[in-house]
């Protein structure tokens, strides 16, 4: 059997394990809920994770045929606000390599072993794409914050000042203190 066929055959369990890996970061009480296949509006976080993970798996399996962009972007937006450092947020992506090897160990053949480096390279490519989207989301978050700062309140109140003025004053204060 070829690797692609094996991946297709085992899609459900592999996706579940991969999803379990990322949901496993949440406290046990929450995992029970997040893993439930509830209506997407009643469980938006679980829904975003499961759509994201199954989308990533689909794209690893079928390549360009699946349009991953929007799905991955949404997943990375979720990951980018979990208050984790980037490496921690993205580590689970690489987990799929070990999940596949482990879950498919009985079916593993020399032929599959030969195909394996290409699969690994795909995962790495996916991770790099995800990293870009993750950083773009962080960037966007800061833009949102900046825009909010600029949009009014700080600028026109009688006793508050614009952020750059506050920074200037802070510097002056530090100088006089030292």
């Amino acid at each position, binding site marked *: 059997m070829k690797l692609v066929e094996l991946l297709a055959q085992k899609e459900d369990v592999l996706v579940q*394990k991969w*999803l*379990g*890996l*990322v*949901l*496993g*970061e*949440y*406290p*046990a*009480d*929450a*995992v*029970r*809920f*997040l*893993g439930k296949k509830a*209506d*997407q*509006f*009643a*469980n*938006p*976080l679980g*829904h*975003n994770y499961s759509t994201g993970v199954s989308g990533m798996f689909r794209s690893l399996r079928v390549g360009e045929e699946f349009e991953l962009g929007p799905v991955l972007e*949404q997943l990375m*937006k*979720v990951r980018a*606000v*979990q*208050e*984790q450092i980037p*490496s*921690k947020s993205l*580590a*689970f992506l*690489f*987990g799929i390599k*070990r*999940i596949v090897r*482990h879950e498919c160990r009985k079916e593993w053949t020399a032929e599959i072993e030969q195909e394996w480096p290409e699969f690994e390279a795909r995962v790495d490519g996916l991770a790099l794409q995800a990293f870009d989207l993750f950083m773009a*989301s962080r960037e*966007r*978050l800061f*833009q*949102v*914050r900046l*825009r*909010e*700062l600029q*949009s*009014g*309140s700080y600028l*026109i*109140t*009688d*006793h508050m000042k614009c952020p750059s003025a506050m920074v200037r004053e802070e510097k002056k204060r530090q100088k006089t203190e030292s």
Partner: protein
Amino acid sequence: MADTKVGQMSEDVVKAPSMMTGAVPTKDWMDVPAVFKPGNYCYPGKEEMAAYHNKNLPGLFGESRTWLVESDDWLLPENWKEIIIQGIKERLDKFRSFKIFMDCCVRCGACADKCHFFLGTGDPKNMPVLRAELLRSVYRNEFTKAGKILGRLAGAREMTFGVLKEWFMYFYQCTECRRCSVFCPYGIDTAEITMMAREILHLVGVNTNWILEPAANSNRTGNHLGLQPHTFKENAEFLLDDIEEVTGLRLNSLTFNRKGAEILFVIPSADVFADPGIFTFMGYLLLFDHIGLDYTISTYSSEGGNFGLFTNNELMKKLNGKMYAEAKRLGVKWILGGECGHMWRVLHQYMDTMNGPADFLEVPKSPITGTVFENAASTKMVHISEFTADLIKHNKLKLDPSRNNHRKVTFHDSCNPARGMGMLDEPREVIKAVCNNFYEMPENTIREQTFCCGSGTGLNTGEIMDLRMKGGLPRANAVKHVRDKFGVNTLSCVCAIDRATLLALMQYWNPDVEVCGVSELVGNALIMEGEKERETGLRFEPLEGSEG
């Protein structure tokens, strides 16, 4: 779900405690400490802010000092525990609902997965039932026999600094939105438990600046930003120029502090200075001019919002009272209120027992349609959407809804007007009359079941942006759905906090969706006498058919 095989395989980093809460799977919630990191807490109140409030309402705001949330010494008064226990006791005696809410939860769990903060963060302490337990556990320890004897077995625990930290974390991850209460068979309102907890935290000076400062400004100059009367007036008049540019008309019906006007109009102050609230304000002015309303705006009661609601009931009462004091001074007949959030919550739920009934005013009657607003018979205050819907129903407005054809609109029920005062249909009636393209979000995300914007109750501050994006995910997710399905590009609402917070939320999650007030849509559609042909909407965006 996370089986051990996957667990073994997973990277070590994946299994480390979440930075958000320090939560490690498998531990009992009482054993998971709250850990503060930059980004997961609001900045504490500035010393001078606490001092200011203390001067006005002695004893309610603790000792003023400069303190750091991440420090292990919050510079609390020596007897802080007694103050807290005493604070709980007094409130149990004073507020019957608090006592009931402490006693009657059966831990059925119906509320557990209904909070947007739990749905967005996956943190179990954001389940409303657990949030309440944070306080209830201390209540049991101090005020129930079982708790005193059995301690932890009965779900009781002592008040410690660790508990205090937990309160500060999780009672500031509740926006008092009341969604959970809709699902509780006993009607337990966790929002009110949060209110009590915050009151008690304030007693020992544990507070946030984003709440103390706007509340101080409101008390001193009349609005959150501390805009003085002349600045407030100038800002508002500046918007008359914009109206003139769009419609060719110079409105002259706007007045300030005019004695003898029939109606006092109170708005959230953000409507006169912040994008996109200013367009809502332009909508109000066009509407009033269109129907020839005899109204005035007070530069002293220039804020509908009531940040007192997030501190304690005394300050809430004081800020609410200001509107009535101005109504009396100006001698108006009744009050009309703009698209504000917690102004309405306070008015609907608490005003009557705090400052009411406002017998010196008349029961509001629309001078245009003659409709008497019996629902406001005691508070004497009518919501702009009720007022507008009534005008529309009586065919008193000349409207061209096609001027909003460039917008595909959905409506966000803001928690306060929706769950706090039960206003669900009026804004929809207005929108449907002034727009041709209106699409509802899914049923379990609107009306009584609406999802909070994720940043209410003084959480709309920049330092917790990550948290806000998580808390707002359930709302954003539903907006995304109608955007993908119907091409919705406009999220309308009737709350000023929402106009600001949904803007940030959309810019992150759904950047092509704009946020607007309902009255902005009204202003776009109103056919004013003598106006020029409109080429743009109130925010100078080209109308459909006039692009290019």
